[in-house]
């Protein structure tokens, strides 16, 4: 009987863990990809493929840091030494509670975070069953404060990044040229930071975790190569709009009028005296029209050149969106597999001793769950976000996504589970404050603050309830 109960707990843990991973993939991947689809940088299909690859990579290669924290950093697992199965029931309850709360909130469209739900659930369980001393309050304090700090940080980075781009590119008289000059530097930063994250004690699973100096050198090298490549790729972008595709309709009209003007002048030279007044009259009218059209063309050309700038930023946006997907996979996979890994460990060894690392196959399971979530439901969310949010042009999208990605990656390195969604909201707000967006609804911020306050007690309460139910069933 005892054995059976353990098997059922194991199976349920797999199920709930998978469901959490599914939920992360279904709802939150849209954060990374939605705006790129909206700005036309990526087609829906390509976005889904790119997200699938990068989310999985992030989860599989870097996801263990945060998973460790969720598994054993929030509550003191040693206080369950005598009754390891209690901890297993607790983690099971935490997963189910978080998943149920997420489902409920998704139905109503509330902006709650997957991360906050699971962390709240685990805290609640630890406090009630293990007593207040079972919770690592220091770590919890750090986690909770990071929830406030991470949107602020990403917002600050986004503010300065976009202000910089605006001053350097959009305010200049030659925006396309400036964008071409600036892009290699931005590419350098994106690639360097991304590679630094990967190689600096990151790729444990590939035994590629280098010490800082080596990692820095390698990251700078990769960044440099990418920058040089981007420089040469940009050479193909012309500053004068190429025909057909981007020329304003008044362009050809303006040219036609110019020709008419020239031909009329020729005609005037060779005309007889009695025709001259009439020709002069026509010439004057054509001249007036030409001036009018020219003014219009100039202002349209201005718009065209901004479109061109945005087209350069499209590539940067794709890059940063991929970066977010990677960072998101790394950070959010923990929500699903942290508790799952804990249960697996207990069932396998019969103790709460957690010296062994999160098994690789569990990370892979989490990554797969995210991909399935993305494939079954997530693409629809991406499509919706993409259709509704078109204000976030590539330059804005890049600024927001890059800032969010840096923040998330930083938190992942520190092993802190943060909300990627809230971090991105902070970044978008930063772009808005840097006068990058025409209008933003700040009520979202209020709703998010409310969700901080509500999610933890709800997650905790539900977990406690489910914990007692599980214990009653299995014992």
């Amino acid at each position, binding site marked *: 009987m005892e054995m059976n109960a353990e098997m059922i707990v194991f199976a349920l843990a797999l199920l709930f863990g998978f469901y959490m991973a599914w939920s992360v993939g279904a709802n939150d991947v849209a954060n990374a990809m939605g705006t790129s689809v909206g700005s036309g940088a990526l087609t829906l299909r390509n976005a889904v493929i790119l997200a699938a690859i990068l989310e999985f990579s992030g989860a599989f290669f870097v996801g263990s840091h945060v998973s460790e924290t969720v598994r054993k950093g929030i509550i003191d697992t040693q206080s369950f030494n005598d009754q390891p199965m209690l901890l297993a029931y607790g983690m099971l309850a935490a997963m189910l509670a978080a998943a149920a709360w997420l489902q409920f909130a998704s139905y109503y469209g509330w902006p709650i975070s997957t991360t906050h739900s699971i962390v709240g659930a685990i805290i609640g369980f630890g406090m009630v069953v293990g007593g207040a001393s079972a919770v690592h309050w220091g770590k919890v304090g750090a986690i909770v404060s990071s929830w406030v700090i991470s949107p602020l940080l990403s917002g600050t980075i986004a503010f300065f990044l976009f202000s910089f781009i605006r001053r350097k590119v959009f305010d200049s008289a030659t925006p396309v040229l400036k964008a071409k000059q600036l892009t290699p530097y931005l590419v350098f930063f994106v690639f360097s930071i991304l590679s630094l994250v990967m190689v600096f004690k990151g790729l444990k699973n590939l035994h590629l975790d280098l010490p800082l100096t080596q990692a820095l050198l390698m990251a700078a090298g990769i960044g440099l190569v990418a920058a040089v490549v981007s420089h040469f790729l940009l050479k193909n972008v012309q500053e004068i709009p190429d025909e057909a595709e981007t020329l304003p309709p008044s362009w050809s009209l303006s040219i036609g009028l110019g020709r008419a003007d020239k031909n009329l002048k020729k005609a005037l030279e060779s005309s007889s005296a009695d025709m001259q007044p009439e020709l002069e009259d026509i010439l004057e009218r054509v001249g007036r029209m030409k001036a009018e059209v020219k003014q219009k063309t100039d202002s349209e050309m201005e718009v065209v050149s901004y479109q061109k700038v945005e087209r350069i930023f499209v590539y940067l946006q794709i890059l940063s969106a991929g970066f977010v997907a990677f960072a998101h996979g790394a950070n959010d996979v923990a929500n699903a597999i942290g508790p799952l890994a804990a249960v697996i460990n207990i069932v396998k060894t019969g103790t709460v001793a957690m010296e062994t690392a999160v098994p690789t196959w569990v990370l892979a399971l989490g990554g797969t769950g995210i991909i399935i979530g993305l494939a079954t439901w997530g693409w629809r969310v991406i499509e919706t*976000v993409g259709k509704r949010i078109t204000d976030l042009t590539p330059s804005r999208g890049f600024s927001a996504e890059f800032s969010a990605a840096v923040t998330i990656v930083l938190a992942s390195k520190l092993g802190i589970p943060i909300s990627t969604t809230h971090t991105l909201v902070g970044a978008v707000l930063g772009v808005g404050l840097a006068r990058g967006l*025409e209008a933003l609804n700040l*009520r979202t911020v209020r709703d998010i603050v409310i969700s901080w306050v509500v999610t933890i007690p709800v997650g905790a309460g539900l977990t406690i309830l489910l914990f007692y139910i599980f214990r009653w069933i299995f014992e």
Partner: protein
Amino acid sequence: MRIPFMSMFISSPFEGLEEHAEKVKEGAWVFQRAIECIIEDRCEDFEEFRKDIDKLESEADAIKRRLRGHMPKGTLLAVDKFQLFRYLREQDKVLDAVEESLDWLSFRAAAGIPQVLEKDFMLLVEAVIDPLEELSKMAAEAHKYFSNFSDTQRLVVKDMIRTLRQYEHEADKLEDAVKDKIFNTIDDAVAVFHLIRLTEIIGSIADHAENAGDMMRAMVAK
């Protein structure tokens, strides 16, 4: 779906401003034709024109209400919300003044505009149409500015505001000249009252356009 990210985005009010300015421009053209019609001896379409203006005015009002209504309390805009509303109010007053001038004319439609003053009124109307056309161009250019915040675009808008002021000044000078002529050529007190008031209302059309321009200047200030 639980997408906090999406609820952050609301439609830009500057599009609405442009749309509203477009109505003002349309109104300006109808207004000009209405005055021309009054000046011609047998004007049968005047009531039609008035109805057109009424319709345009209520459409513009609807845009104004839509803009105000869809600006939740916590809206973050690139410009001060009050400036935006003040601008919109001034732009709306332009059309109100157009409507009022036709209404005022209709009270003495039979008397119309005396022959000696016909040319002066035509000129005055033309002078107030210019700023309205400039106003709608400015709204379009300002929308571009608020979507890319480029400095060159800002100069374009500032330039238009300057032109707008000049037009208003021209209209002011004409308004004074017309008033002067009314007092010096018309003897009938009722007619003088009617015409002076009419001149003032027509003049105020340009004033409101200039005020809108001034608000725009504040909005595009760095």
